[in-house]
């Protein structure tokens, strides 16, 4: 493995340096039919789950075949996507916000061969490489974060629970039987890279034990005042500890006050929280970002804790399936999961989804908590 230089010279880092050029310009990559009709689209339709047609003022049409994908992708997989795009789509392809892959063709006759090609491609382990779906009133791909594959703060894995849940709801990825679309998201810690706090259903990794204190290294690795300032509940204070007869500067944590956000760990690597039994999953529900009919909403915590059941997280997958089925059965057409919950009332939501209501679900964090308690006699028995 000899080192091969690209031409970069560490002695003179500024020589020929190119910086701040930004991304490649979007329109270099448009398929011709997109470039030609941009801004002049008339309407669209879903021909079948996963297949869209957009019709332009010019009469041009573009057919889009949407496929699910694991957001973690190897170059082998991307090269296979390129091969398909070359074969069917004139060398163009795009990704959606929810990590789906979209193959576009400019003629209806090209759709079926593309679908056939995609259906035949499977991984060695047996799963589809390019399942078609993710449109309309169904369950689309789960957006997610890094998890154990690449992050330092997760309380759960990301790719694993997503795979398990998508396997469970796979039929609804490929059909349109829901009252409205269902957006599921996963964040493996409270940082929530992404926006799981506004999803129809959110899977959130959560720690349940206060940080451990690596006193011996703490002062060497961390700026103690920063760690103290980082705590949203003021649970951390400076402390002197004695280790091996040596007086060390460190911190003390008031465990009762800790809500396990991990913010101190972000500031100070000597305060890890991760724990096999402590860590697990919170399920949230009823959020949305679109302004359609009702205003955007936050998701609400509906299950305070499910243990990490690697490798297939059965309880998590089952709970989500349960909510989706109750919603499909009971909600009205066009009603998002959160709108449904608000119409029937949260007391009914727990009943219909067969979820337990526990004291952990009552908000007790600062002012916003008060606005979630009931201040009316209008409730349901």
């Amino acid at each position, binding site marked *: *493995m000899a*080192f091969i230089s690209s*031409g*970069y010279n560490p002695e003179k*880092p500024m020589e020929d*340096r190119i*910086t701040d*050029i*930004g*991304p490649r*310009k*979007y329109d270099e990559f448009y398929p011709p039919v*997109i470039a030609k009709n*941009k*801004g002049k689209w008339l309407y669209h339709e*879903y021909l079948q789950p996963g297949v869209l047609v957009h019709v332009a003022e010019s009469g041009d049409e573009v057919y889009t075949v949407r496929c699910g994908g*694991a*957001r*973690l992708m190897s*170059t082998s*997989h*991307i090269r296979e996507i390129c091969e398909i795009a070359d074969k069917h789509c004139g060398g163009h392809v*795009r*990704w*959606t*916000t929810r*990590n789906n892959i979209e193959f576009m063709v400019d003629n209806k006759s090209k759709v079926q061969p593309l679908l056939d090609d995609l259906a035949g491609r499977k*991984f*060695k*382990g*047996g*799963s589809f490489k390019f*399942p078609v779906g993710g*449109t309309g*009133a169904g369950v689309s791909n789960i957006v997610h974060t*890094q998890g154990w*594959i*690449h992050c*330092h703060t997760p309380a759960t894995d990301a790719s*694993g629970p997503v*795979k398990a849940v998508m396997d469970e709801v796979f039929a609804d*990825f490929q059909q349109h039987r*829901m009252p409205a*679309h269902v957006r599921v998201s996963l964040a493996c810690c*409270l*940082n*929530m*890279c992404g*926006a799981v706090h*506004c999803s129809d259903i959110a899977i959130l990794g959560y720690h349940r034990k206060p940080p451990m204190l690596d006193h011996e290294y703490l002062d060497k690795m961390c700026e103690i005042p920063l760690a103290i300032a980082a705590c*949203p509940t003021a649970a951390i204070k400076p402390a002197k500890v004695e280790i091996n007869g040596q007086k060390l500067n460190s911190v003390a944590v008031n465990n009762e006050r800790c809500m396990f956000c991990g913010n101190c760990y972000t500031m100070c690597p000597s305060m890890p929280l991760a724990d096999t039994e402590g860590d697990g999953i919170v399920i949230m529900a009823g959020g949305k*970002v679109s*302004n*359609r009919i009702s205003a*955007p909403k936050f998701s609400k915590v509906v299950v305070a804790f499910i243990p990490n059941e*690697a490798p297939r997280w059965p309880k998590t997958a089952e709970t989500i399936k349960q909510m989706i089925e109750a919603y499909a059965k009971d909600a009205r*057409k*066009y009603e998002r999961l959160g709108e449904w919950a608000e119409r029937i009332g949260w007391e009914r939501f727990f009943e219909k989804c067969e979820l337990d209501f526990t004291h952990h679900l009552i908000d007790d964090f*600062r002012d*916003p908590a008060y606005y979630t308690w009931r201040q009316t006699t209008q409730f349901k028995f």
Partner: protein
Amino acid sequence: MAKHETPMLDQLESGPWPSFVSDLKQQAEKRAKNAEGIEFQVPQDAVEDLLGVLELSYKHGRTHWKHGGIVGVFGYGGGVIGRYCDQPQMFPGVAHFHTMRINQPGGKFYTTKFLRDLCDLWDFRGSGITNMHGSTGDIIFLGTTTPQLEEIFYELTHKLDQDLGGSGSNLRTPADCIGQARCEYACYDTQALCYDLTNEYQDELHRPAFPYKFKFKFDGCPNCCVASIARSDLSFIGTWKDDIKIDQAAVQAYIGGEIVPNAGAHSGRDWGKFDIQKEVIDLCPTGCMAMDGKTLKINNRECTRCMHCINVMPRALRIGDERGVSILAGAKAPILDGAQMGTLVVPFIECEPPYTKIKEEVIEPLWDWWMEEGKNRERLGELMKRQGLQKVIEVLGVDPDPRMVQEPRSNPYIFWKEEEVEGGWERDINEFRKHHLR
């Protein structure tokens, strides 16, 4: 023969959904075989070790990535995230496994030529594992070593005409919805605005000078396909001011059943015959629609542009012509002070290149205020909460507008400023006492 046994991960190969484990395994095999004779610049068994370390995490229920290590390319404070394994002896192939964020093109359209160029570079100088894409929007290259960072950057900029994205306390890589490229609802060119601001603010993107991260996201309409309203410090949402355009013949075609409602999104179930009264008019949140005989009427002044009727009848109803953007500020995830949704700070602003008003009258004043007043790691939304929406209005120099609030205040704890009260606050107690005995 695989380098590490992965009995737990193997269970994620079954089931219909694309298995990342199968994909990792195919990549590991490919690297082991190396049919193309690539002179790998990071360990050939990196992907096998990645599988190994992930299996260990599955066993322990804990991550094995370390918190630590500042790495980057010269002159940039963002774009590279250092990552080290906490079991380097067991998994030397991923002992150093840094992330590079590659600024994605708008709308995430690609040519296969460009994708292959990226793959060639990443097979040669990285693990060949990516995220397509990270939550912020970038293409994420997962797994390389420190000596490769400058080399990758050099090749990206010299050969691929392509820059890194953002990380750290700076502008994060902006991201947009597909917009006018393929969506008839888009009220402005999301890609053009995203590209323009990304280039205008390269310095802010690459050199951390902010109290904390800052995100721009661009949605072409209030459907919010990139969730800008929930996850960007400044969210640009397309809107219009004039009337929804109605094609009455198409309305009749929906009523008659010749055109399927909601573009066919509900095809999986029999919801009965389309009923315009029940499905559109009665669901309109403002109650501003009615059928007048065979004519659909919209009282546009009362419409809040929620998109419902347009979504249900895209061939009959179209967005208006007087288009622009609404700008909302301060959305963020829970850390630290709880989740926040974006707050409407600019109800309407025109959105045509070169976007001078947006830059000079909205973005830059907000940044100046935040950089001046924001505490370390305080997001814009938290500063807004701490100092108030009135302060934002002052910073932007705009007039207060009932559109910015859900409702007026219900508590009368009004903070008057001294200059707002006639005669000021300084008074003479002795003057007062002349008429009010002690």
